[in-house]
């Protein structure tokens, strides 16, 4: 029982203190899981983050779920995910429902209109970050060429992004590796 309570509190803290989305909460999870409750070593945690990043989807819930599972099975998994996710979803629903009940006032319309360019700016910053990472991984030319092709497919031909990503994932797995020995660790 107290173990479940510890799992809940650990990930509840991560969920309500982790500003800036899932990736930003990784150090907080480290603090709880490695430093405070000693459920795993720092090395193990590092491996876990690396593994989590090889899979798609939000990282914070993957870590929470796996660690919860390791500590106390399926119940621990559910507990950890709920503790990470639930508090802020409830907050979100309350705040947005309140906002939309005032929607017809002019000043509320002004308030929400001012948000659109702020979000646009944040998306642009994210765009640049993803491009920079792509360039770091593949080099300038491949990134530019790929980006142009992807742009044409997405915006001019209206191909669903899922199809493009699916095709690239298959290509990444099927493509032969360059022969390079001793690339462990």
């Amino acid at each position, binding site marked *: 029982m107290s173990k479940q309570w510890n799992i809940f509190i650990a990930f509840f803290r991560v969920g309500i203190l*982790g500003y800036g989305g*899932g990736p930003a909460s990784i150090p907080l999870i480290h603090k709880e899981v490695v430093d405070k409750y000693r459920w795993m070593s720092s090395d193990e945690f590092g491996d876990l983050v690396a593994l989590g990043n090889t899979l*798609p*989807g939000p990282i*914070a819930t993957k870590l929470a779920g796996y660690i919860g599972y390791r500590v106390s099975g399926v119940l621990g998994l559910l507990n950890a995910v709920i503790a990470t996710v639930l508090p802020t979803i409830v907050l979100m629903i309350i705040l947005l429902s309140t906002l939309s009940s005032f929607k017809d006032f002019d000043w509320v319309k002004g308030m929400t209109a001012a948000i659109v360019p702020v979000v646009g700016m944040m998306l642009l910053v994210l765009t640049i970050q993803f491009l920079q990472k792509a360039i770091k991984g593949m080099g300038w030319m491949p990134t530019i060429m790929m980006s142009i092709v992807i742009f044409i497919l997405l915006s001019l031909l209206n191909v669903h992004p899922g199809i493009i990503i699916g095709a690239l994932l298959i290509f990444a797995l099927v493509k032969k590796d360059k022969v390079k020995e001793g690339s462990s660790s």
Partner: protein
Amino acid sequence: MKYWEIFLAFFIPGILGYGGGPASIPLVENEVVKRYEWMDVQEFSEVLALANSLPGPIATKMAGFIGYNEGGILGAFIGVFAIVAPSLILMVFLLGILYKYKDSPKVKRLTMYVRPVIAILLGLMAYRFFFESYTGIGLFQTIFITLGSYLLIERVKIHPAFVIIGAFVYGGFFL
């Protein structure tokens, strides 16, 4: 039917969003705004702004709220489940195998190849947001708020939550 759509709308970002939660934002937008038309750009930007200002993972907050909006508490549950479960289940059951291939170039290529797609999706989404803002509040206000928020968040390093509150206040008085 609705619940199945909610499931699909978040399942796809959940299995294709390589690069953590932020990578799934444009994929969620693609389903929610473009495909199912549950929200317009303005409403989605409110959701995203708030998801960004509140703590915790962003993708699950969006899934929870949009699921709730479309299908009540069950909808919220399905949305969160669809975005969280697939990769979490893989993680729990395939950890041994993943561990073996962690440093394989194939696995590294997965994330690498998806990045430009996410980048372009994000860029297109940013364009739609700016265009929406331009038609709504005009060119001058759009540029002013964009530059102002950029300087405050990226240069002065003020937390986005405060900048969003600031934008709310500014909008309430001046727009």
